[in-house]
């Protein structure tokens, strides 16, 4: 339960189109396979990049994983999420 597990999840999603598709199909179920606490699971499942960044996850990975799921059109949504106070 840590930013390390969040990073592992986002790296897995970001480097494998098949994993990204699994995430898209069922985000909550996908989050269950990693060592995450309830808050971290919710953050991953909703792709709350602002919260994951606050928890210490690398923004390189957050951007990569988010874009793998959302595609190029998701950049605006990413910036909104990462800029959230």
């Amino acid at each position, binding site marked *: 339960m840590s930013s390390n597990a969040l990073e*592992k999840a986002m790296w897995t999603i970001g480097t494998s189109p098949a994993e990204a598709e699994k995430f898209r199909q069922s985000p909550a179920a996908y989050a269950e396979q990693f060592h995450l606490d309830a808050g971290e699971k919710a953050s991953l499942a909703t792709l709350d990049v602002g919260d994951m*960044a606050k928890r210490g996850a*690398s*923004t*390189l*990975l957050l*951007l990569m994983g988010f874009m793998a799921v959302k595609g190029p059109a998701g950049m605006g949504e990413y*910036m909104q999420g*990462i800029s959230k106070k």
Partner: protein
Amino acid sequence: MATLVGGFLMPHDPFMSAAPHIAPKEKVDNTMASFHRIEARIRELAADTVIIIGDDHYCIFGPHCIPRCLIGIGDVDGPVEDWLNIPQGPIANHPELARHILERGYDEGIDWSFAKALTLDHGIAVPHHLAVRSNPKLRTIPIYLNAAVVPAIRNQRAYAIGQSIRRAIESWPGSERVVVFGTGGISHWVGTAEMGRVNEAFDQRILRMVEEGDVTSIIAMTDQEIIEQGGNGALELKNWICAMGVMGALKAETIGYEAVPEWICGCGFTELKAA
């Protein structure tokens, strides 16, 4: 012995190949002119081998393993990203010289990681595409420093690795003519709320230090100072420091600079020459 004939510092911004058109045409043209200048200088220097120092961006290495310094001593291909607008395929390495750099480093206390079959990410693939690919005589030795994932390699260590690479080149019995690339930077914020910001004043300060051959002042900058002023992407100055270590005493000439918020990066180009 092999001869180190020159060095160059340049960005490896993936937008330069993937989506150059999102930037104003003048900035695109000036940036590509800088790459063409490097291509021409490499031909003038009659180089046959290029050592490209870059950093991975969590594209090829993951949270399970992040090497501090890694050299490709075998097959090389790439890029791993399919969206770079760069043909994916084999890239000619110089495995013998790469192995010699590794072995010499081992003798000198450099704990290289190594790859026998390495797929590049944009950190090396973009400079290769824009400054090397057009010259079929060039073979490429890829070196990855961890300049992106904190805790990153220390600046002094990056410089020491460069010095070891230089000694390896000088002790290689072949007649190769080698150039070195330090890639990345300058200011950019990757994935943060400030993404798109470029700190031109910081970039110009770095370029002045390079022009003066003042690597000592760059090495003295803390990672926190670099991140605050140049963003997390500016840690890639460690790749520049390593290349300056390869060069040793040097003089430098700025080739070009463009602040390109559309590419989320300040793009600086410098030629390094032996002093």
